[in-house]
């Protein structure tokens, strides 16, 4: 077997005696010195406050000047070195190790973050040293890394020059050796004129302004980029989701610590399905599946259960339609019920004391805040009159807190407060917006009770294209003045008005407490160990309609049985909790098996925006439905689907990118692939064909 690349007579060189072009040790030392020099240059430029773009300019000028000088001083030796294969190997190995360094040291963190990350490790001194002195915090944008790439570019170009002329079979060699320079040149051109900027575009509000986002704080959103001679409009935004899929997960390996294995077996849910559970002899049967269920169960006394005191109460409103429900003394979410007419609230508490009574009176908020949302971020500040906040394009100032509807004059004359709808009554906040672009001041009024109303009223005044909303928040406020409090320790029912007990009676099952004329509450049952006993039925509201997979709450009844003992346990599993969150699992046979029924994790399938490019007069120039993998490209501008606002479906986050050197990079990629194919496979074939012709 012959080999076209068999070496000529191998020459063995000593470690130090070999000439530079074949001496790996000297080459490594030289490359190290080259990198150290660039580290020093970058440190100097950093101290002088040079921007990254200026640093690249200095780097290119100084690097080319130095290499030019080197070739003038020792042309032959420099040429031999730069065109030697060992030097190519040294450079590529060092480049690979440099790339590797950047995958070991976390990139682009702050010095304080590096210190907390590495400072406590015994080996942490090395990465901290490299970050401090070798720019290892941003390896791939450091001048020494650029320096290595400059050398590789120069070497490959000189090799291409050395090996000329290029008859057809050798074209591949030329292509692969000019490819690195083309790729790097594309990156270099990209350093000048590269733009990446963002904006959250509102449907129907064209914009030509994007921001080069620097940080997470809206105060950092400076440095605007204007589209040259055209603007962008959002016609439609849409989130595509996968159909919800509910599955049953079986856990059969208890870990002895109250948990189970991390990889349960998952099952498609099908009524009547029966299977042996993995790694056990227990059998599971899916008795009943309800695609959209409601829990018609109730609390039951479970004497062996945990202490969970509850009262079953009947509220009689005098309209012949009593309301029955449970109040749980120890549940923060279920110890209070406000009568629908707002006349009083009832409560069940473990005990009643003076401090509780003092809280049961109307009082103002513990905190009042102005919540400012723009570009998907929310800032909350205390709403103190006179406070001002400055932003790149505008200023906001809190003017006044209004205890009630703030407008004195309406379109039909003076405002009569009693005629104002209750949702617009209550406190309002007055804010002044000062636009820096035209110096105009505009008043904004924010309604605490119905924020959506003031959102709509203020929308035309707020700066466009930022997705901006302002809300007035009041926390810890109490508006109720009358309470009926059932205490369990002394079985007393107390009526409290404005923080004072006005009447107290003992309570017992069946006993009625009259709050007011035609308004009474009866204790139906006391349950010291209340436990919820579910009983799922098909949702009567949706039974006759087509199921809505996004809002349905499926429930599943499962029986787990042990064929050895003949014992069986049946339980209901709902996919969702009453608040819509995924339900917890439950156990069978004293924790031997766990079953959980819930929606499979699903990410959105796609985000799609219909974008229109138009000129300043509104004439359409281009239109496309962009999605995550499919940007709109117009006059060198690539518009990407970037983010979205889960609260506002009329807003779409769009990123614009301008990258001038892209075509050069792709030309380099093409040269690399075609050149290598040519070298490895086409060249031998061409050679063979030529030899055949000669023969």
């Amino acid at each position, binding site marked *: *077997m012959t*080999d076209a*690349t068999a*070496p000529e*007579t*191998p*020459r*063995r060189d000593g470690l130090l005696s*070999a000439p530079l072009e074949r001496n790996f040790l000297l080459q490594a030392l030289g490359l190290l010195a080259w990198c150290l020099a660039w580290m020093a240059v970058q440190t100097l430029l950093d101290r002088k406050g040079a921007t990254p773009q200026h640093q690249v300019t200095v780097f290119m000028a100084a690097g080319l000047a130095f290499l030019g000088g080197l070739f003038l001083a020792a042309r032959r030796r420099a040429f031999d070195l730069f065109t030697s*294969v*060992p030097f190519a*190997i040294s450079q*590529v*190995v060092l480049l*690979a190790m440099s*790339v*590797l360094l*950047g*995958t*070991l*040291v*976390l*990139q682009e963190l702050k010095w304080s973050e590096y210190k907390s990350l590495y400072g406590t490790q015994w080996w942490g001194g090395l990465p901290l040293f490299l970050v401090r002195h070798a720019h290892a915090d941003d390896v791939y944008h450091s001048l020494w890394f650029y320096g290595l790439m400059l050398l590789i570019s120069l070497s490959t170009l000189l090799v291409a020059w050395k090996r000329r002329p290029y008859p057809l079979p050798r074209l591949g060699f030329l292509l692969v050796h000019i490819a690195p320079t083309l790729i790097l040149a594309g990156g270099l051109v990209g350093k000048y004129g590269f733009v990446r900027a963002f904006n959250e575009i509102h449907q129907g509000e064209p914009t030509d302004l994007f921001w080069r986002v620097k940080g997470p704080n809206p105060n950092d959103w400076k440095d605007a980029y204007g589209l040259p001679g055209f603007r962008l409009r959002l016609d439609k935004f849409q989130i595509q989701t*996968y159909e919800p899929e509910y599955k049953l*997960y079986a*856990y059969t390996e208890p870990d002895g610590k*109250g*948990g*189970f*294995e*991390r*990889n*349960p*077996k*998952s099952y498609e849910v099908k009524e009547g399905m029966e299977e042996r559970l*993995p*790694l056990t002899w227990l059998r599971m049967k899916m008795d009943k599946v309800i695609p959209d269920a409601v829990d018609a169960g109730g609390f039951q006394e479970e004497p062996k259960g945990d202490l969970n005191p509850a009262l079953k109460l009947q509220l009689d409103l005098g309209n012949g339609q009593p309301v029955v429900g449970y109040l749980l003394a120890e549940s923060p979410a279920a110890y209070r019920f406000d009568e629908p007419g707002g006349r009083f609230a009832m409560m069940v508490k473990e005990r009643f004391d003076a401090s509780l009574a003092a809280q049961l009176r109307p009082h103002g908020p513990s905190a009042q805040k102005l919540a400012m949302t723009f570009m998907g971020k929310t800032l909350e500040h205390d709403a103190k009159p006179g406070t001002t906040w400055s932003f790149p394009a505008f200023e906001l100032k809190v003017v006044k807190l209004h205890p009630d509807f703030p407008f004195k004059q309406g379109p039909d004359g003076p405002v009569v407060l009693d005629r104002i709808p209750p949702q617009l009554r209550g406190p309002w906040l007055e804010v002044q917006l000062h636009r820096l672009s035209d110096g105009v001041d505009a008043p904004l009024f924010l309604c605490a009770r119905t924020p959506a109303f003031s959102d709509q009223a203020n929308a035309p005044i707020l700066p466009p294209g930022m997705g901006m909303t302002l809300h007035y928040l009041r926390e810890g406020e109490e508006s109720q003045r009358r309470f009926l409090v059932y205490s369990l320790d002394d079985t007393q029912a107390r009526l409290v008005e404005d923080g004072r007990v006005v009447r107290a009676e003992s309570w017992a099952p069946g006993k009625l407490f009259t709050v007011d004329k035609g308004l009474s509450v009866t204790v139906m049952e006391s349950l010291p160990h209340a436990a919820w006993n579910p009983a799922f039925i098909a949702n009567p509201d949706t039974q006759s309609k087509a199921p809505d997979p996004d809002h349905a709450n499926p429930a599943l009844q499962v029986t787990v049985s042990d064929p050895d003992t003949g014992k069986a346990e049946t339980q209901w599993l709902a996919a969702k909790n009453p608040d819509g969150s*995924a339900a*917890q*699992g*439950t*156990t069978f046979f004293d924790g031997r098996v*766990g079953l*959980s029924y819930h929606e*499979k994790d699903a*990410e*959105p*399938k*796609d985000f799609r925006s219909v974008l229109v490019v138009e000129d300043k007069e509104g004439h359409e120039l281009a239109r496309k439905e962009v999605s*995550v*993998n*499919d*940007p709109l490209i117009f006059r060198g501008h690539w518009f990407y689907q970037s983010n979205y606002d889960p609260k506002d479906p009329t807003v779409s986050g769009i*990123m614009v990118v301008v990258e001038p050197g892209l075509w050069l990079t*792709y030309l380099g990629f093409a040269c*690399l*692939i075609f050149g*290598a*194919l040519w070298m*490895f496979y086409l060249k031998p074939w061409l050679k063979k064909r030529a030899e055949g012709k000669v023969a």
Partner: protein
Amino acid sequence: MHELYAHFVKGEWPFKLTLIAYALAFLAYLASLWAPRLKDGKDRVYAAARWLFLAAWALNAYTLIGRGIEAGRPPFKTFYESLIYFGFIFGGIMVAVEWLKKVRLLGFIATLLILGALGYALHKQDIEIIQLPPALNSGWFLPHVTIYFCGYSCVTVAFVLGILAWVKPGDRSFDPGSFWARAIGTSEVNFEVLTRNWVRVGFLFLAAGLITGGTWAKFAWSDYWSWDPKENWGLITWLMYLVVLHLFYVPSIPRKVAIRVSVFTWGFIAFTYFGMGYLPTKSQSMHIYTETPPADQGDVKGLNKEMY
């Protein structure tokens, strides 16, 4: 061992059958390396090994295609799926080589490596099919991953040949009745040249993988290169194979050095595939495969933490 058994019990049947078939093929190849020919001159053990390898690969393909149809997307979103895909691509290449060239030693090593990959897949098994996030929902997904896995497979072949070249360097002429002649199906061979040829193919695929990845990234993330740790390791492996190719051309460097470096360089590929989760910078990568949550985060929808 119990954990592996538990994983096996919970596994999907097509995957389990694939695993069993590869195990049988491996045992048959192992036996075929030493089993004597029958009196009629036929090598039935080897014939059985080849058919078993082909059957295992067909089952591998069935598992993969079935998974793709069920998921409605290319079946290599998760680590588990990608390992099955590696078995399919690498197995496909090796089945082709085996049937064309009759190299039972390669069949033996290939089934061993695929068994290792699928055994690891058993450990990394998915609980269920995971849907694609928007960024992966692209026409570039299939070609990019396929090209890369072809690259991984070719350099894995080069790695195996490199080890053989290390053991048996230079032009070799084996006695036709010897173990080696039988194992490689020929008496004349130069493993060094074969290693270099497979490195070339692998290198081309790796380059194409980098470029298709870059093109996809330009459309999905706006940058053809974002210095993501996985991208960087893709570049490191490519650069190291570039070094290997150049080493074959330096007269002053013995060929055995190039061979040894090529064998070690395969370690970079293995790390790029298996080791990304161990990188300190893994949190800065958008390329890490989806996996079953590790034990310390073993909370599947609250059942573990909240179990009453």
